[in-house]
């Protein structure tokens, strides 16, 4: 902690003096771990390139976020942590924080204030779900459908997924219970505010699985975010769930005949953690990067490249047009009022408590 304090002070001083590039107490090179694909590209454009230009630090990308928890554990055990900043979903950040693998962050001293002087803790608000986690985006898991394969009445309701009479054809769902169980209950007549109460019970879980059972033969299960876009482009499925940014890219960048079904989208957070136990130089560099990459302007900049909502309140008004396509990004954000009529927020506590249990049941059901 003494190191942390010393180098927090260094970081603060650097910011004041504005000479971060000339600071000799920071590592020159850093490894940033993220998800790859279009998402890493948006970070490269919005964060990495401006940061390198400003400070001269060189950034190496490692697309290993999918196995971040396991790899960080192994690195920690081997005493050889090679990562400096890691992009993870909120649930993974919580696990890493609980295990002491991530550095605790004090938002008001380690993160930049909003331009109007609002403290970071207020600017991020409720999205600071863990002591170690600095959220950068709000994304949603939602459905896309092939406009040319759903007939004359395109679906407007998430329950179309379970309606194989009106919409015959394959649909792709993620190979895990999270989200699928909620959607199944919602479409089996459970009221939205009761979904987690019902899902906490044995009968509720069976009810959800029974509902999923009605479409089991029509489901293609995906495990990587790129699967559903590929399946939709092939016309192999008529609708499928994936992250909204992937669907944006399919629709607007690849011009595929696909449309969004925002109904009952599930919000989740993605952001940064800094691994615990870095050398002082590397930690100083990581903190300096985080301070830069999560300020109001940078978060708004990322939305120019990918349709994920910035995690700061103060960034929302700054969201502009897509950097290459020139279209307005605001209507494509999951948080846009038109898209967010009916939404879920990923229920961290519920899934932290029930995940292992329901996972086992879900896998057993899949194997049946």
């Amino acid at each position, binding site marked *: 902690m003494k190191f942390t304090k010393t180098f927090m002070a260094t970081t603060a001083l650097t910011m004041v003096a504005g000479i971060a590039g000339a600071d000799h107490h920071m590592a020159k090179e850093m490894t940033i771990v993220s998800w790859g694909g279009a998402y890493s590209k948006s970070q490269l454009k919005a964060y990495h390139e401006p940061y390198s230009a400003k400070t001269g630090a060189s950034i190496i990308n490692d697309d290993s976020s999918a196995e971040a928890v396991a790899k960080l554990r192994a690195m920690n055990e*081997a005493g050889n942590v090679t990562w400096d900043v890691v992009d993870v979903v909120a649930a993974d950040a919580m696990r890493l924080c609980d295990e002491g693998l991530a550095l605790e962050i004090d938002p008001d001293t380690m993160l930049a204030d909003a331009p109007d002087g609002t403290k970071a803790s207020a600017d991020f608000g409720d999205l600071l779900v863990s002591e170690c986690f600095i959220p950068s985006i709000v994304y949603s898991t939602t459905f896309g459908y092939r406009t040319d394969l759903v007939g004359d009445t395109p679906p407007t309701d998430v329950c179309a997924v379970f309606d194989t009479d009106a919409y015959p054809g394959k649909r792709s769902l993620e190979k895990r219970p999270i989200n699928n169980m909620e959607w199944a209950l919602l479409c089996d007549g459970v009221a939205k505010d009761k979904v987690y109460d019902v899902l906490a019970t044995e009968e509720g879980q069976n009810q959800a699985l029974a509902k999923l059972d009605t479409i089991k033969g029509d489901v293609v299960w995906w495990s990587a975010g790129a699967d559903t*876009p590929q399946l939709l482009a*092939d016309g192999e499925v008529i609708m499928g769930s994936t992250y909204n940014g992937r669907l944006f890219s399919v629709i607007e960048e690849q011009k595929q005949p696909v449309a969004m079904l925002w109904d009952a989208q599930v919000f989740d957070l993605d952001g940064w953690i800094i691994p615990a136990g870095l050398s002082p130089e590397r930690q100083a560099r990581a903190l300096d990067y985080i301070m830069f990459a999560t300020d109001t302007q940078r978060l708004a900049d990322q939305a120019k490249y990918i349709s994920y909502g910035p995690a700061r309140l103060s960034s929302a008004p700054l969201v502009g047009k897509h950097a290459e396509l020139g279209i307005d990004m605001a209507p494509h954000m999951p948080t846009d009022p038109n898209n967010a009529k009916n939404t879920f927020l990923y229920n961290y506590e519920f899934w932290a408590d029930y995940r292992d249990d329901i996972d086992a049941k879900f896998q057993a059901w899949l194997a049946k």
Partner: protein
Amino acid sequence: MAALTPISRKPFWLVALVVGLFGGFIGLFVGTANGNGPMGVFIGAALLIGLAWFYIYVLKDERAGRGITFAGLGIAGFAAAGMPGLVLGAIFGAIGGWMIYWMYEGRYRAYVPPYLTAGQVLWHFTFRVICGAIFIFLITPILVVLPLSFNAQDFFTFTPEMLRFDPEGYSLKHYRDFFSNNEWQRSFKNSLIIAPIATIISVTLGTLAAIGLSQSHVPGRRAIMAILISPMIVPLIISATGMFFFYSDVGNWLEGLGLGKTFVGYVKVVLAHAVLGIPFVIITVTATLVGFDRSLTRAAANMGADPVTTFFRVQMPLILPGVISGGLFAFITSFDEVVVVLFVGSASQKTLPWQMFTGLREQISPTILAVATILVFISVCLLTTLELLRRRSERLRGMSPG
């Protein structure tokens, strides 16, 4: 090849049977693609049998018959499915027309020995068909990748434009991405750094080990051999886990000596890959040493050459083919390897397979296919060069290339 057997015309039923089978087989694919396999089989068989009957009993002009089949099926294909239909229809027509006369005139019999029974002739051709099918089965997955890598879209999909041979549907953008994207370039460079160095280390150590182990007086030869080739037998994931912890310590120690983090990272990956490559070198070199005449080394020693000179002037040139093929295996092992490098390497040592692996999982981008095409091309060139060199050296040594 000269004809071996005088030929005669064959009865219609035999022609009908063979061309019917062929037509049915092709019809199965066309039919399945259109959602009705059995119907396709029936139409394909009936079409060719009908044409055979028409040519044999009505037209009686081979040149006209084959021309009609070729052009007619091409046009029919074009009407049904556009450009790809034209090509496929014309190919089917050309083969079908040729086959009708090949059967009817009995030409299939001309180049097989005259004493074969009907059953043996049948097996003669069935065997070739089976060999061809196996060949297609092996090569198709590689060939499918080639056209897809020129896709104008970012998906692994044959778009309608591509099937129409519309230039709009093709582009070089995935190749451009590979050559301009920093991540791909860096990983390509890393592969080109790591694989050759690992190869040199494994060839050197592997050859020495093989020569040592081929001496009859070495105690515990078999046990040592078993240990040395164990990286090839132990499941890679287990080696990788062990290597991760082992090389973490090695790396920390090296960094403690004041060496740079990136340099140490390369050393770790190169050493790990060298370990994986050594078994291949040992096995190929040991196999070559079996045919090596020991009396040559004794003769060299008799003439006053020390062991090192003997090795480089006498033994090495003779076992070179084994060393080279072992080296090639070691190179490919390192160049293809993804599991160990994922464990041992850090992001600055990201190799090409690692980049392809993450690219495939996180974003199904045809850049991977472009890279695969380039790699296939490089491998073909490499193997061709090697084969040409081998033939040349055998010719120089007065042996016939085999």
